[in-house]
């Protein structure tokens, strides 16, 4: 697996207004250019930006303006008719779909443009090779009771200490929220006292340097210095490695689809843009950013 270039979440938020200003500025100053508005998920904002830049090189007459703000913001914007394409790292809720029907008279169309799988990994010295979501909830959840490696069947003495060192992400990150929701369900909190890494790269580094640690990150960040675990839904159930195939088939349990919504069937430039995103050239971008492509890539 390839390590992906360091796009840290806080930095991306910092650049967002700057990029937006540049993009908006350009589209105003040039005549005869088609402009597409693309808004939504912060998780996808780097990806959307990379697509926009690559597409502009491929088709200089089309400018895609990318805005973050979060999935909810993007969907609201789509419903209000303020954007052409909404990026979403979750599916639209029934009330959002109803609001779109009511306001615009058109039902939103969903495109799965890629997948993001969260890998759970340990130090290479750790003999553990699989884990279940139930066990992760016991380790990371506020009401969880597993605190020692021996409770997971790791013999004492192999890791220096028996204590499980939980590597987490800073609580404002989208990866943190997604992990929390998938492992614990809605409305639950993660146990305090975890070592909170500032960025996915940091989480991988910390686990690589700490024999008794367990951590998680998008699969694109995983390096050979950590050991990804096979993950199952239940204890003893079938477990899968975080791979592109397992993410695409839905077997890997911590996989989220990366979606783009349009109002009704897209026409013209939006249609061409979506087709390009799903083409090998567009899917190459998603592969290089460390996400899972949905189709063939170059």
């Amino acid at each position, binding site marked *: 697996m390839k390590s992906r270039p360091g796009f840290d*979440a*806080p*930095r991306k*938020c*910092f650049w967002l207004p700057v990029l937006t200003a540049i993009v908006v500025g350009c589209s105003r100053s040039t005549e005869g250019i088609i402009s597409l508005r693309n808004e939504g998920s912060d998780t996808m904002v780097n990806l959307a930006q990379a697509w926009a830049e690559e597409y502009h090189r491929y088709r200089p007459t089309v400018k895609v303006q990318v805005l973050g703000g979060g999935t909810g913001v993007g969907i609201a914007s789509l419903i209000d008719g303020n954007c052409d394409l909404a990026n979403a790292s979750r599916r639209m809720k029934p009330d959002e779909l109803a609001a779109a029907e009511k306001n615009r008279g058109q039902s939103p169309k969903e495109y799965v443009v890629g997948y993001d799988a969260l890998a759970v990994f340990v130090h290479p010295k750790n003999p553990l090779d699989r884990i279940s979501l139930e066990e992760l909830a016991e380790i990371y959840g506020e009401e969880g009771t597993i605190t020692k490696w021996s409770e997971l069947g790791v013999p004492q003495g192999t890791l*220096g*200490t028996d*204590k499980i*060192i939980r590597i987490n992400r*800073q*609580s*404002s*990150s989208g990866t*943190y*929220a997604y992990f929390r929701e998938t492992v614990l369900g*809605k*409305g*639950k*909190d993660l146990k*305090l*006292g*975890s*070592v*909170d*890494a*500032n960025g996915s790269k940091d989480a991988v*580094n*910390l686990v690589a*340097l*700490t*024999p*008794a*640690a367990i951590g998680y990150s998008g699969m694109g960040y995983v390096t050979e210095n950590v050991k990804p675990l096979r993950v199952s839904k239940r204890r003893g159930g079938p477990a899968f490695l975080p791979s592109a195939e397992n993410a695409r088939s839905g077997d890997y349990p911590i996989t989220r689809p990366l979606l783009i919504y349009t109002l009704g069937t897209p026409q013209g430039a939006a249609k061409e843009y979506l087709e390009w995103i799903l083409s090998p050239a567009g899917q190459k971008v998603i592969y290089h950013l460390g996400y899972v492509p949905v189709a063939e890539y170059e």
Partner: protein
Amino acid sequence: MLSDRLEPLMEWLVRICGWSAIFFVIAIFLFVFREAAPAFFGKLNLWEFFTSTRWQPSSDARPEYGALALIIGSVTVSALAMLIAVPLGLGAAVYISEFCGPTLKEVLKITLELLAAIPSIVWGFIAYMLLAPILIKTTGAAVGVNLLNGGIILALMSLPLIISLGEDALKAVPDAYREAALALGASRWEIVYRVLFPAAKNGLLAAVLLGVGRALGETMAVLMATGHAVQIPRSLLDPVRTLTATIASELGESVAGGPHYRVLFVIGLVLFAVSFLINLIADLVIKGVRSEQT
């Protein structure tokens, strides 16, 4: 002729430069206060802020803003850093000022300046990549980024300040004191211990206080060195989280104007107040030196 006209102009320019420092401090304080203020009238429970250890700002169920663990994190890391840096720093100051030859003195001072010039983020890398594995190996710690790691790194970072200010304080003691002590038959150690320390005590205290201020305010290196874990440490090898590191890691993604954002600015206010207090005390202590000497 020209200089006659230039002089008042220059005087004004310099005056503006001087006043600008006051202007900036007040402007920064007003900005931080303005951003934090709605929290006091809104939902922030100050009792919870200072007494709860539950820092769950992005909880879906119920966000909680208990900063006690962060406050204790900041205090313990700084205290540990001072425990290491003060004896080392004052010892080095005494050696440089009283014992070593002129050539070595120059070498040491240049080296110290280099130590002071190392950027915070580089210290963070040293903590993270170098010191953490060493700590795991030598102490059997479960995780290498912890209180001890942060304390050592902060101690190294505040050493140059403590040494150079401490040396200044010792240098300010008039030579007549040393000569008088020598004439009475005191040994070199007795001169340091009985004459120089009492005479320079305010200056030395100020050096230590400014070192504390440096340690409390440091952000990037402690963010990487301490492990950033919200808990009250039970041993030197437990990871902790400081107030400064919390702001650094969370402000970027908090919703501007939201409760989380406001609380981070309240933390900023707390830090501002504490560093103001420490600097004020250090100033008063240094003033004490001056009035004693005149």
